[in-house]
Each structure stands twice: as structure tokens, then as C-alpha cells.
């Protein structure tokens, strides 16, 4: 009998298919829920904005749906319904009106919605074209980026809310177990008090050891055999240090002492320079509205004061949304 049982098990095993690898919902290490996001658009967008949407999706990798397909007839409710079981916590919604494109950052179940007006933006391809040596290593988007917010201060509530919102879009770092090689990207948001504009930048982080001549560094990094034809001796190659690189005139501030080795070149407990190179989109945002619900609910902060009707009509003129109807309902309630 035992033999029969074994045979049966064997048959079943061969039939069972491999489950597709799913993204973890809960971080193994910290035990917290990992925030995931959807980036999509409402209404028809011109091609540059569609590119911006793709750039934002790449930015939010790995915890986002890169190939999310949305159809014209999809409502916000559809996205909500899908978001629940998949563990998606944030929505980034792009839309366009005659005035300007808007970006809405919302937290899914019933969270607050922050509406940003995009004054200016540049696409990732433009940024790459403007650089002499654009850089995109392979596993740049395998790890979530770090985020730095500056100038938001501790004062105004809507700014505080924006800080908390952005801090929670990306997963937290566990300093006990974090690996230096996973911190490869950084998102910078700077708030300018005078103009009330938020600058949005996205950089890639690179560490270079300090005090090593350029030739040696390149040699160790790339393992390319250098050309020694003109030299008498290998010592010439090694000792002809050179002027260092032009950015050796780096200030102390951008140097850190690593706690562990990183890659081939950087060694622990030696100084390395932190170099940032811009990738990804560049945006100038202005926080115009904070709503209590997901694109619905009462407006708890409005940049232009309580004159809400005009703006709302502007915004949702071209979109056929459930949210529009609910907003109108809310308007009626408010009045």
C-alpha cells in the first residue's frame, strides 16, 4: 500500500505547475507591508505626458506595475477593486486640462489625495541626451529609491502631510540588514517657500574611491588591459598619478567612509566620494489641493482658497469619471 501511495504522489508532483513568482507583500526582514503603487492616467494624454507616465512607472520600480494596461472604460472603482487583493497602497494619477497637467498622489483604501499642478517637466530621454556620459547600469531599477525631502519644514499641515505621503510611498530601510549596494537611486524633493513650488529630481548614486588615480581606478573597475607601449616600466603606469580627476577638488561634504566593501573598487573604512548623476524625469510641482478621500471627500486644503467650483470644472471637463460625479455631489454638499 505504501508503494501505491508513493506512486500517486509522484504523479501529482509532475502535474503541479510552478507558481509564478509574486512580489512579496510583506517585507521578510522588517515585517512591514511593502507599499506598492499604480501609475496611470485619466483621460487622453498627449505623447510627452504618456512618456512622463512611463518614466514615473520606471521610477517607482520595483514595486509597481510596469505594464499596467488601462482602457478608456476603466473607472477609478475598477482600479480600486483590483488594488485591494494585490496589496497596492498608492495611486499616482496623471491628467491634463487646458490649464496644465496634474498629478494626483492618493492612498488607496480611503486615503487622502494630494493634487499637484505640474508647471514644468522634462522627460528622462531629454535628461539623458543632455548629458555627456549618460549612465544606466543594469540593475538600477531592481531596488527602490531613497527619498530626501528638503525645505518642507515642520510648520504647515499640508506640507507635513506631503512629507508623510512621500515618505510612505517607498519602503523603509532596515539599517541592521541593509546592503549598501541596494541604495542606488535617490529621489529629491525640494520645497521653495517663496514660490511655493516643489522641485522633483531623480538621481543615480555612484561611489568612487578618493585618492586613487583615474587610470588605476578604471583599470580595476573595467579589467581592461591598459596600453603600456609608451612606458618603460609598470611602475610608470602605477605611479604616474596624475592630477587626479578634475572633480577631485571635491569638498569634504560629499565624502563618506564606507562601512563595508562595495563593488570592486570601494573598500570599507576608506573615503569614497558620493557622485550623483541625474536620470529620470524632472518636474516642478505645486500642491494645489488636498482631499480627504480618494479623489473624493471634503477638500481640506486648497491653494486658491474656497473657490473650488471653477477649478474642478476645468479639471474634469474632458474626463468621464465616477469621481467627477462624486466630486460634484461633494460640491453641492459644501455649498
Amino acid at each position, binding site marked *: 500500500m505504501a508503494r501505491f501511495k508513493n506512486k500517486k504522489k509522484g504523479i501529482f508532483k509532475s502535474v503541479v505547475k510552478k507558481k509564478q513568482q509574486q512580489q512579496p507583500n510583506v517585507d521578510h526582514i*522588517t515585517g*512591514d*507591508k511593502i*507599499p506598492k503603487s499604480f501609475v496611470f492616467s485619466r483621460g487622453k494624454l498627449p505623447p510627452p505626458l504618456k512618456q512622463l507616465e512611463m518614466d514615473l512607472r520606471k521610477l517607482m520600480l520595483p514595486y509597481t506595475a510596469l505594464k499596467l494596461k488601462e482602457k478608456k472604460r476603466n473607472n477609478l472603482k475598477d482600479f480600486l477593486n483590483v488594488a485591494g487583493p494585490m496589496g497596492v*497602497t498608492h495611486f499616482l494619477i496623471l491628467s491634463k486640462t487646458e490649464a496644465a497637467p496634474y498629478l494626483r498622489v492618493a*492612498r488607496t*483604501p*480611503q*486615503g*487622502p489625495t494630494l493634487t499637484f499642478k505640474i508647471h514644468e517637466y522634462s522627460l528622462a530621454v531629454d535628461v539623458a541626451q543632455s548629458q555627456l556620459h549618460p549612465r544606466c547600469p543594469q540593475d538600477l531599477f531592481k531596488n527602490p529609491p*531613497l*527619498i*530626501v*525631502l*528638503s*525645505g*518642507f*519644514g*515642520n510648520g504647515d*499641515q499640508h506640507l*507635513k*502631510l506631503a*512629507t*508623510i*505621503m512621500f*515618505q*510612505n510611498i*517607498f519602503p*523603509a*530601510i*532596515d*539599517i*541592521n*540588514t541593509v546592503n*549598501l549596494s541596494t*541604495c542606488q537611486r*535617490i529621489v*529629491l524633493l525640494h520645497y521653495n517657500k517663496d514660490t511655493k513650488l516643489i522641485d522633483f529630481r531623480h*538621481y543615480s*548614486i555612484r*561611489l568612487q574611491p578618493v585618492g586613487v588615480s583615474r587610470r588605476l581606478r578604471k583599470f580595476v573597475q573595467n579589467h581592461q588591459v591598459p596600453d603600456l607601449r609608451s612606458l618603460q616600466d609598470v611602475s610608470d603606469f602605477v605611479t604616474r598619478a596624475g592630477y587626479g580627476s578634475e572633480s577631485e577638488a571635491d*569638498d*569634504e*561634504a*560629499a565624502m*563618506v*567612509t564606507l*562601512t563595508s566593501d562595495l563593488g570592486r573598487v570601494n573598500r570599507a573604512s576608506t573615503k569614497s566620494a*558620493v557622485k*550623483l548623476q541625474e536620470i529620470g524625469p524632472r518636474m516642478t510641482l505645486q500642491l494645489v489641493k*488636498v482631499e*480627504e478621500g480618494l479623489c473624493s471627500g*471634503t477638500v*481640506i486644503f486648497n491653494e486658491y482658497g474656497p473657490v473650488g467650483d471653477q477649478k474642478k470644472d476645468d479639471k474634469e471637463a474632458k474626463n468621464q469619471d465616477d469621481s467627477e460625479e462624486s466630486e460634484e455631489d461633494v460640491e453641492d454638499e459644501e455649498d
Partner: protein
Amino acid sequence: MGREKRNTVNDASPTVDLKSIIHQHSLFFDTLVELIPAKFYLPVDDDEKPWFQGLSKGEKALAKKESRENIKKARRDRLDPEKSNKTTLDLLKQNLEKEKSNKESDDDEEEIEIKPMMMSDLEGDNRSVTYEELRQRLHRKIEELRGGRNSGSSEKAKKIELKREKREIHLKKRKREFGSGEKKPTTSNPSDKVEKDITEAAKELAFSHVKIGNEDKHGKNKKRKLSKMKELEMARKLEEAKKDPEKGEMIAKKHSWKAATSRAAGIKVHDDPKLLKQSLHKEKKRHQKNVEKWNERIGTTQKLKADKQQKRSENIGERIHQKKMRKIEKREKKLMRPGFEGRKEGFVNQNAA
């Protein structure tokens, strides 16, 4: 005789020779002791040993990291020529002094008096060296403080340095202007102003969340989930409070901001009585459904049981019946003689008449 002579010779200048001999002995022993690393020579306090067993995973990781860093730091300090290297001898002296202060008895004081006398020659040299070193260090510190007092901006620069050391682990970038401004604390006015702006901006930096590992657990133990009924009550109270004419608006605003910030942070806020009612309703329905299912299960098991019992009793009855029939058969077989077919069942005409 010889021994006596030797003794007298020794007695002639007892204190000087004795002292020098003892001095030489003690020098020899001191050099020996200095060769041994303090770790092996001095008695180890059991309390100082790290105890890893009772801790959780996160705490263990932290503690191990701390001890590793401490070991590294200690090794660096030991091999650093600029920092004071305490020889085993110095540490031993420290320990002895500690014991001294702990005991506080006359006998020990007498012993201690003897010791400093003996070691006075030794300590004379050592003390002078250490005094000089200490004096130099003191001078250096005073100069640093003096330098710091004059220009307020370098104080801020120090604060910034501290902050930066903390952030080294995270590898966050600093703006270039800020960095260059820090390195040139000149007294020219425009750069000063720029620096002030930069340092003010630096105070307002916020970063992504960092998990340290221990704190959350305690917090979670304290919070408990309120039952839904209670939450519903609270939500209703809140609504009524909002309707209150005087403070209603303020309460409403405060609550919306609070709810928005906690929702943005990931904490679930249950403040809508409608939704709470719905979920209570759902829970009730679920409960009812479960009760029904359970009853059904009980019903079916009972039914099956009853069926089986019935079938069993039927079978038993059948068996008994069959047994009886067989006996009758057997009995009747005997009467199946040719010419006679079974028992007499009465007369042929009985029924007709």
C-alpha cells in the same frame, strides 16, 4: 659564620640596597606585566560579558553589531599612536585604586601608604610623562573651545558634522553649494549669509523611514484593536460632535487633518459610521452563515448516524427472520413426503361450507 657576616654586611646599608633591589625587581615584573595584553591579565567581570540568548532576532542583530563595532573601535584606539595607550600596568593600577575606594578600611590605607612609597621612584617618571601629555591635551581642547566661541557659524558647522556622521550609513547626498559653503567659513558677508541660509535649510531635511527594529514591538503590544461596536460608538459620537454649532467646525477640521495624516502613514482610521455599520452587518451575516453551516453539518452527521443505525438494525432483524425461516423450512422439509404436501391445512370443504 659566613651567613652572619653576609647578614652584617647587608645590615650595614639596609634601606638603600634593599630599596634598589626591590626597585629592580619591581621594574622587571612591570616589564613582564606590560608584555601581557590586558585582556588576559586582568580579572574579567562577568557582568561585562555579552548575553545574547534572551533577545529577539532584531535585538540580537543590534547587539552583535554593537559589540563588533566596539571591538573594532577598541582595536583602533589601541593601535592609534596619538591616543593614550593604557598599558596593562596602568589598567592594573586603575583597578587597584578602584578597590581602594571600595573598601575604605584602615588596614588597607596602611598597605597603600607602603605601596606609593615603594613605587614613588617609578611613578615619578611615569607621572611626569603623563602630566605632560595631559597638559598638551588640555591646551588643545581649550584652543578648540576658544576658536569655537568666536564665530557662531563654525558651531553650526560642528552640528552639521555630527549630523553628517550619523547619516553616513544612509549615503544621502548633500547639495554642492551647502558643502562648499561649509568648508569656507570666511568672514566675508555674502558668503556668510549664504552659509546661514544653507545651514537653515539643512535643518529641514527629511529622509525615508529607517527601521531600527526594537521600538515598534513595544508600541504594538500596547495598542489593542477596539471591537467594532465600540468603534461605531466612537464614530457616532464624533459625528455628533461635528454637528455641534460652537466647536463643530474646528473639531471637524482637526479630525480631518489627523485622519489624513494617519492614513497617509498607513494607519487605518475608522471614522465613517456608515462603513462601520456595513462591516458590522457583514460580520453578523457571516456569523449567521457559519452558524447555519455548522447546524447543517451536525444535522447531516446525525442523519448519517441514524441511517446507519437503522440499516444495522434492519439487517439484524433480517438475519433473525431468516434464521427462523430456515428452521421452519427444515421442519417442513420432513413433511414433504410423496403423496403428502406439507401440513394439514384443514378440510377441503371447510371454507366452502
